[in-house]
């Protein structure tokens, strides 16, 4: 597949990737950086993509791995808050503006509850329920068996219901 054609097809998924990135980072500037880094990596390693397989899943996989890479680096480098939640004010990318005002506020209890889920629960819900991705693709993104994906979706929804019940009280 010519590089230009590959880039054109990949860019068709930019909105879905950006939406996913915003929910992962909760920070639009960081989401910008994450998506841009994702595409640059994808374009650089386009030869590793197998034509005929799901380009969308491959791109989401790159984005998530990129996020986790920087997330882990940030977890190591930044202070952990009292509640065990990483300090989100620290920029994920080192050249990102250190501006806590850019961190998004949750507008609904549902959004707030989703944010409190662990990353692997949040991701399966976003990919499977919000993006409507087949479980096989979700499994590829998360690099785990389909059964694990099903289990995580079930447990994620259980956790989500529990959080929503807490908000109701």
């Amino acid at each position: 597949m010519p590089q230009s054609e590959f880039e054109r097809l990949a860019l068709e998924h930019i909105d879905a990737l950006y939406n996913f990135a915003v929910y992962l980072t909760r920070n639009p500037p960081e989401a910008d950086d994450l998506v841009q880094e994702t595409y640059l990596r994808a374009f650089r390693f386009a030869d590793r993509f197998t034509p005929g397989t799901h380009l969308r899943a491959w791109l989401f996989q790159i984005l998530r791995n990129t996020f986790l890479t920087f997330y882990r680096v940030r977890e190591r480098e930044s202070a952990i808050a009292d509640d065990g939640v990483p300090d989100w004010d620290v920029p994920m990318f080192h050249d990102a503006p250190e501006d806590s005002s850019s961190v998004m506020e949750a507008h609904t209890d549902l959004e707030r509850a989703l944010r409190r889920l662990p990353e692997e629960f949040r991701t399966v819900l976003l990919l499977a329920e919000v993006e409507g991705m087949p479980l096989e693709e979700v499994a590829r993104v998360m690099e785990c068996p389909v059964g694990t994906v099903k289990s995580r979706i079930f447990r994620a929804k259980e956790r989500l219901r529990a959080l929503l019940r807490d908000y109701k009280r």
Partner: protein
Amino acid sequence: MNERFSDASDEELGRRLRAELPRYVAPARLHAAIVEAAAPAPPRRSAWLAAAFAAGATALVLVLAFVPLLPRILPADPAQRLMRSVVAEHERALMWGARRPEAIPTALPWLTQESGIGLTRVFGGDDRLAFRGAEPVYLEGRRGIALHYRDADGHLVTYMVLPAPALPLPDRQRVQVERWKPALMYDNGFLAWVWKHGDLACFLVSDMVSEAELETFKDYFVRVRTATEPVPAY
């Protein structure tokens, strides 16, 4: 709403997630930034190439500027080596004139004293060659005498005599001119008739190098050769 979510079935919760969560759209600038970043970079000229080019150009300019000052490789042939010095002296006179031009014959005693060469007869100029001056010279460790003439076309013609008892003339370059057979030698854009007069080497130098000028230069040789008689003074 929370009540509804907390009690919702899995399908209902999934449907609500799709419907209720705000969806974020990538800003146009992000798309543009990615496209721009993905565009193939223009072929970059190697950084060292520009530096090497600049260094080469500088070296070339320096070489060209200093070439005239560099020592030239001396020819192995002693006649050619002496010829080179004679031409250099002729060039100097051509550019700057004689250092201390003297008139003939009033200055002859002084010239003889300074050069060690006497002129029993001397060509003092005629309708073709005008005498410009005479001066002692010192070339290749030899004292000599130089007489400068200028012809009607503006060519400077220098007659120079130097003591050179053992100087061999290159046979291949000797040319029959009337009853004489001088060598016609070339160096650095100048031609010279070179001949021996006893232990003295005589040179008649000019920049008349073209085929047409050569006949005229031959005529000048005859005029000077016929009328001039140098001898060692001491």
